């Protein structure tokens, strides 16, 4: 069991993922687009969300801090700056 957290348009919300497998970053972005389009996140429903809405986002994965043994997957905006790409 994993929880996907999506931050978009000033909102941050969790979505429980039934799958317990190694999702690629691309998979996570595609799932997030469909979840937001379908209204699966409370307060965050955008039917015409662009397919590439999360292209400039990164996927952070780590173990939940509550001792549940679950995984947290954060889809958040990338935040590097600089004269050159890092």
């Amino acid at each position, binding site marked *: 069991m994993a929880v996907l957290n999506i931050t978009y348009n000033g909102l*941050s919300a969790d979505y429980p993922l039934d799958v317990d497998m190694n999702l690629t970053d691309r998979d996570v972005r595609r799932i997030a687009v469909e979840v937001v389009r379908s209204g699966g996140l409370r307060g965050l429903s955008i039917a015409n969300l662009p397919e590439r809405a999360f292209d400039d986002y990164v996927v952070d994965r780590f173990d939940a801090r509550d001792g549940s043994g679950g995984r947290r997957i954060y889809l958040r905006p990338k935040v*590097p700056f600089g004269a*050159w790409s*890092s």
Partner: protein
Amino acid sequence: MVKLREVLLLIGEDDVVLWSDASDSPVALPDSRARWEEIWSRRAQIVEIAHSHPVGPQAFSHEDETTMAALVTALGRPITFSVVAPRGMVRCTKKLDEDPVVILVESEREPWWASLLRLASAMTANIPEKTPQEE
């Protein structure tokens, strides 16, 4: 000897510096979850996000532009961004689904923290375009 490095400032109302971080590189501030968490936790106070280009250019890079787009998408509101370089400063306000207009900030109109950013980045402030011998 102080090493050139890129530095980032989160700026609030009345040009208050809310938070800062730095890299150990003069040409990059790598992605950081901690930076994102600081931005998110201060999202109601942030007016501007500024960073330095200690070795130039006095312009937004492609990396900057894509990061600005991602941040505005996530925060859901316009944010002003700026780059402080040795010889000057540029600024733009990025809105959702709109290309920003980049303006050159005249040196006498630079905010006080531009000097701080140059100092923290080990830049030589406002290097003249030409020395008297070159003119």
